[in-house]
């Protein structure tokens, strides 16, 4: 179950590759400018970024057994962003992904812009912004931090998997109707592994060397209006993603079933909480979005509980 989101050359249409190269170059350019204006010692920061790149490489070797033959792995996008800051973190991830393509042929060269965009820009920059905002919404502190980091790590893997599939679909090298549910289904689990490892790493660092993280994370929760605003933005982003994925309808498997003619033979589960990802009594997009919101709420509650347990263990 090793997450492989490094697209090789040949899988993306050249125009898709080039468009994503441009998007990546613009964002990394902004990141370079942003870190240049930070009041930190430039050589020290560059050395830290370089060695942190090697750290991400090495940390991707860490796995943990889930069941025989299956293991959880770390991609490290959100981890890099939380440890180094969103901008420096995304530059480090871009460098790591570039070296992986050059040295290990893990991902292509022409499609490197797309790979950096999916994992470095959306995964790290987007992921660490989500982590920070989520942590503020949940009142900051230890618990908020764990919830934020875990949720962002999970979302970053899902977003990278979804974007990869969409780009392949636009390029005509996969069928989005089947590819999207398959990729998101497997990566929903891989993302949980990513979230747990990332929380473990941040927990260890914040317990052993709290000063490293204190500059990077908000210690306290945001004020009530800010909390509501941030919460709405995060929920909106997540729900739109969920709605986008849900609208790859008819659902991939159902479509295969329909195409292959065995849809009628399928039996529904004994009871359905949200039949067809919709809320009974409502119809259309509103219903799908509401169903998405319920799904997000469930994930958030689970993470909240996990965060509480983790925080209690730490303080015990």
């Amino acid at each position, binding site marked *: 179950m090793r997450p492989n989101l490094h697209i090789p050359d040949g899988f993306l249409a050249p125009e898709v590759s080039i468009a994503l190269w441009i998007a990546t170059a613009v964002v990394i350019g902004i990141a370079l400018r942003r870190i240049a204006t930070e009041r930190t010692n430039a050589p020290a920061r560059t050395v830290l970024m370089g060695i942190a790149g090697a750290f991400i490489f090495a940390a991707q070797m*860490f796995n943990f057994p889930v069941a025989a033959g299956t293991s959880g792995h770390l991609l490290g996008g959100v981890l890099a962003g939380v440890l180094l800051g969103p901008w420096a973190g995304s530059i480090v991830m871009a460098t790591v992904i570039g070296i992986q393509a050059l040295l290990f042929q893990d991902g292509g060269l*022409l499609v490197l812009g797309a790979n950096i965009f999916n994992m470095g820009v959306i995964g790290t920059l987007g992921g660490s912004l989500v982590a920070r905002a989520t942590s503020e919404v949940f009142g900051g502190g230890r618990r908020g931090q764990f919830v934020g980091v875990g949720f962002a790590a999970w979302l970053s893997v899902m977003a990278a998997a979804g974007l990869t599939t969409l780009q392949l679909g636009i390029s005509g090298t*996969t069928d989005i109707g089947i*590819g999207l549910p398959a990729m998101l289904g497997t990566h929903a689990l891989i993302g949980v592994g990513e979230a747990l490892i990332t929380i473990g790493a*941040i927990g260890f660092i914040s317990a052993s060397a709290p000063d490293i993280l204190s500059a990077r994370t908000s210690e306290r929760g945001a004020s009530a209006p800010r909390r509501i605003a941030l919460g709405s933005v995060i929920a909106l982003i997540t729900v739109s993603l969920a709605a986008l994925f849900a609208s790859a309808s008819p659902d991939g498997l159902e479509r295969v079933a329909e195409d292959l003619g065995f849809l009628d033979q399928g039996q529904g589960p004994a009871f359905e909480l949200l039949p067809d990802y919709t809320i009974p009594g409502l119809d259309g997009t509103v219903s799908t979005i509401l169903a998405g919101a319920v799904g997000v709420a469930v994930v958030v509650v689970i993470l909240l509980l996990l965060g509480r347990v983790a925080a209690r263990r730490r303080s015990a």
Partner: protein
Amino acid sequence: MIATGRQDARAAIVTTLLVTLAVALLPTGSYLAYLLVWLAVATVAALSGIAPGQLARRALVALPFVVAALPLLFTRSDEIIWAGELGAISLSVSGAGLRIILTTALKAWISVQVALILVKLYPIESIVGSLRALKLPDTIATSAGLTIRYLDLLRNEATRMLRARSSRSASPIGETRERAGGSIPWRARVTGNLAGALFLRAYARAARVEEAATARGARGSLSFGGLQQTDPRIVQKAALALAAFALISAGGALLPRF
């Protein structure tokens, strides 16, 4: 700070990118063009002292990704080459889908070989130095140089930490059943702790490296160093790369497709 002999790989980088782009632009089903490009790539490899067979085998790394394209075989409804019943399921296989899958696999396979020739001919330091000469921003070039330099060291450290973990806890189930460790979240947390501990070591190392660099008089930005000698025939080589691009594109347009 990091000084190694750096050759000018700019022409090779430009050629690699242009050939990869030309291959990506080849139309679906132009197998003859792919064969000719592969023969050319294999010839260049052989002339550079790289065994083409070995190159072809190593390039298979990209092929597992073809799984992503497999649904096209059944979801496309054009050029049905086989349709039948498999028990209760009626199945059709599309020729158009098959063509896309084969083409994508060939493109990936050839592109990896082209990239492999580049990294086999030039050490990674030369490639990063040349990218810097091609206007890769300083911060990225220096950071990439340091990443490459400390890669083996940190990977060795990670290997030792994993070995230490498996002798104490969290071994994969089935290998040493009695030491399989706690629940899955517990194992995940232990793995996270390892990553955290490794980061603290990397952080301490970065502070030491920075101190050492300052002690030796490094000021301002660290320089990863430019190219030691520039290729005098870079323009001619770039023109050759463009010619290769044009030739492959022409082949794609003129040669028959299947």
